[in-house]
């Protein structure tokens, strides 16, 4: 067992975690990054396809600037967002984010004459080198910044529990370096959870291998409030096969340097979604697409898990490939590009909800615990927003720092956690393997907590989750007690987190008695702004969940109706 000390322990090595570390370092504090994958190479940030232009950057008109804000609030968050926060964030992106990234060397794609290439239309975007692949150089830059600043990082190391001192402050983390099989106990004045937007909780998920809702589960177990856990976003046109490509998207976003973008066809060969015709304003029209698909599914011309197609057969290959990576996947499957389409499927994508935070400081509801990026419940899915959180959390912690206690965590706390991990490694029950349990959870989430939900299905999901928790987890069996690179041990650790997270997601889904954006309830098909334009807050009360409703203020944008069938709502 290794003991480490830092001022701030940051769990997560994506856009939010890296930027938080860099800002804290700049403030003279000592951050330490704990990353379950590899810093800059795991999690959702890697998948940033492009960067949305905010404000008046790059010749954006006043209308385009407003469109971007409207898109963020309406199409991206269905009004479940603090609009004042969104405004602060947009201003920072315009003033700091772009210039800072370019000064560091990020290559905003130019043409041969030197103009920054943008996508056209009501909302514009740019790419870091290539559209569809922007997250790779972006996060590589962060990885190298972390290296250059000499910020220590524990990689391929999973955080398994938050530690609290005698006053109840979060002030440490128990970790497992699963490559070497060694435990690390980190003591810190503050802990930042930055574990990302996505998780691999459904049969098809965009979350990467390591994303098993660890941040949500650890925060909940430590007693932090959660919010809007039911608000799950979906990708509508991810490639159906092969299985490991489940998050590979046929991007619906407008293309750089082109007036066109991907279109979608149902099983009868009829086009049912084309960005340019169907929704030019919805820049990343995920919800709009999902609603279009739902109508196809209801008329028997598509399934949520396939039977419909996407591609660029109406475009010129050279035009698509001038600034994008979009042709590569088709070619790799031996398809003729752009003439052939590829079968697509729905994939569970970002969770809009997450840990409840005070978005001025990124404090969670328990002292010492902070949040940055997608695991927070305050916003949804853009790399710029997640990065902004890194700045805010660093400022928040720096402001609180003198008040945060240095009192160390008692040894009992972490030895108990290490005993739990040892027991998991030696799981010698007669029952199910962790991999089988993971698949079981993902199947039940897909079947009963998928795109379309109702009370009966959700109740059935709850009882299945209870059965897994009470009957299958104690009898889990792993095939080797080897400590080194034992991914099955890691799976056993993950499964416990997945059970905890799925349970709160299902409870939360039952609680929201309406449909909103990508959240479809068959038994409550209408969007109900009178009762549900509100945060669905979950508080832990012993072994129970107490729900509270907190309305959102609407200073800039507000919906134009009280109730309406969700499928007829354009956002």
């Amino acid at each position, binding site marked *: 067992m290794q003991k480490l000390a830092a001022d701030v322990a940051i769990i997560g090595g994506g856009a939010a975690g890296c930027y938080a570390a860099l800002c804290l370092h700049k403030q003279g504090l000592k951050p330490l990054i704990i990353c379950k994958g*590899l810093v800059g190479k795991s999690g959702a940030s890697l998948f940033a396809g492009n960067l949305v232009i905010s404000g008046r950057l790059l010749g954006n008109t006043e209308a385009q600037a407003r469109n971007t804000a409207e898109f963020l609030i309406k199409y991206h968050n269905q009004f479940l967002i603090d609009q004042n926060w969104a405004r602060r964030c947009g201003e920072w992106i315009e003033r700091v984010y772009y210039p800072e990234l370019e000064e*560091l060397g990020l290559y905003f794609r130019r043409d041969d004459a030197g103009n920054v290439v943008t996508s056209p239309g009501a909302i514009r975007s740019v790419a870091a080198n290539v559209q569809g692949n922007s997250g790779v150089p972006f996060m590589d830059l962060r990885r190298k910044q972390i290296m250059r600043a000499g910020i220590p990082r524990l990689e391929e190391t999973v955080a398994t529990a938050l530690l609290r001192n005698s006053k109840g402050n979060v002030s440490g983390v128990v970790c497992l370096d699963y490559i070497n099989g060694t435990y690390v106990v980190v003591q810190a004045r503050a802990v930042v959870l930055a574990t990302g937007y996505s998780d691999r909780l459904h049969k098809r998920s965009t979350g990467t291998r390591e994303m098993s809702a660890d941040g949500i589960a650890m925060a909940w177990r430590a007693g932090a409030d959660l919010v809007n856990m039911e608000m799950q976003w979906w990708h509508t046109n991810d490639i159906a096969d*092969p299985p490991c490509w489940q998050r590979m998207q046929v991007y619906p976003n407008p293309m750089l340097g082109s007036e066109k973008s991907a279109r979608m066809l149902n099983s009868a060969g009829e086009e049912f979604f084309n960005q340019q015709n169907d929704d030019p304003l919805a820049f990343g029209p995920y919800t709009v697409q999902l609603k279009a698909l739902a109508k196809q599914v209801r008329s028997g011309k598509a399934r949520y898990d396939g039977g419909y197609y996407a591609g660029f057969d109406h475009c010129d290959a*050279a035009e698509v490939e001038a600034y994008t990576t979009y042709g*590569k996947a088709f070619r790799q499957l031996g398809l003729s590009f752009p003439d052939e389409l590829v079968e697509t499927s729905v994939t569970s994508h970002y969770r809009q909800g997450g840990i409840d935070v005070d978005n001025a400081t990124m404090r969670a509801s328990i002292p010492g615990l902070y949040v940055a990026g997608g695991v927070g419940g305050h916003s949804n899915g853009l790399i710029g927003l997640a990065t902004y959180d890194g700045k805010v959390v660093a400022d928040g912690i720096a402001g609180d720092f003198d008040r945060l206690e240095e009192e160390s965590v008692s040894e009992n706390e972490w030895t108990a956690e290490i005993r739990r991990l040892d027991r998991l490694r030696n799981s010698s029950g007669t029952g199910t393997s962790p*991999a089988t349990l993971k698949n079981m959870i993902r199947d039940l989430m897909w079947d009963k907590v998928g795109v379309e939900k109702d009370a009966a299905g959700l109740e059935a999901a709850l009882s299945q989750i209870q059965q897994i928790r009470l009957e299958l987890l104690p009898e889990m069996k792993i095939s080797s007690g080897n400590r080194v690179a034992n991914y099955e041990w890691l799976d056993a650790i993950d499964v416990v987190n997945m059970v905890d997270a799925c349970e709160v997601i299902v409870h939360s889904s039952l609680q929201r008695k309406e449909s909103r954006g990508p959240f479809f309830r068959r038994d409550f098909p209408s969007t109900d702004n009178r009762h549900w334009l509100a945060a669905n807050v979950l508080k832990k009360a012993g072994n129970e969940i107490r729900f509270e409703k907190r309305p959102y203020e609407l200073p800039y944008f507000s919906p134009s109706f009280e109730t309406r069938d969700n499928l007829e709502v354009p956002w």
Partner: protein
Amino acid sequence: MPADLADRPLSAASRMGQLERADTLAARNRRFSEGQKIQVRIRRHDDLGTRYQQFEVPYQKRMRVLDALNWIADHEAGDLAYRWICGSRMCGTCAVRMNGREVLSCWEAVEPAMTIEPLRNLPVIRDLVVDRSPFEQKVAALEPWIERAVPYAGFPEKLTHRQMKDASKALDCIGCMCCYSACPVIGLGGLTDFAGPAPLVQLGQTALDPRNSKEKLARSLALTSIFSCISCYKCEEACPAAIPIVSRVIEPLKARAAELLPQMAIHSRAFRTIIAQRGRIDPGALVLRVQGVRALANFSRIFRMLIRGKVNPLKTLLGIRTAASRPAQHLLGKGNNGS
């Protein structure tokens, strides 16, 4: 086939192998029917030793190598250690060798019979998991970032894609280390100080960027032993991101090294000068120019070279030209541009 590859002539060295692979992509994806059995042989390694284990995997539609590994871990060998994160050619952590060649397991279609082994040139931790740290340390030592000679002027700064053409190619690198495993010079182990293709591509991302200062560039290049690269194109053949590693990264970096640190390029420069002057290579002259008079101290080597006719002191001394010297001079100029 990547669009830019298709534009190059069939005879271009950089298309070797890649062309062959690309040609069979359609066939590779249509070779199997659902449920058909694939034979997978995996090299297992732990502290008890190394062995190969055989598995039979049912084909799933459009199956990738990674899908086969996932199936094995889910159904047959829960303790199989293999690294992957994204499953869609972005994180670059799932590279293995399949039937002797480096592939990104999430990207490559399965074969009817596959032997899966870990990457070469990196220590194996367990099964298919290699230790990435030697590569990471090399990259960090090269300081792959920008130090501006001129202060940043504000967004958007003056820059064209033409200036970024080579750097842009290098920016497609996902750090999968397929090229590092395939490189025969790295395969020589400690015999050279060669940084290797992957670290050079990582360096190329900023070193080929016109915004980086020459001082910074020279400092980094000095650590690469870049002229140990023998331009065999193995790296390009292996690259799943289709980066023209030799022609668009290593060769341009060599040119900059020759310009900024002429001493590094002494061998290439001498080689070029001799060809330009004489129309052919003269090993004797080359050794003398590169090593100076101390080359003469190695009597036994000189003796062996004389006996085998490798050197002809008379021709070297007289600088005798061949018929090819005139066109060579025409093509290479005076021969003092060491690239």
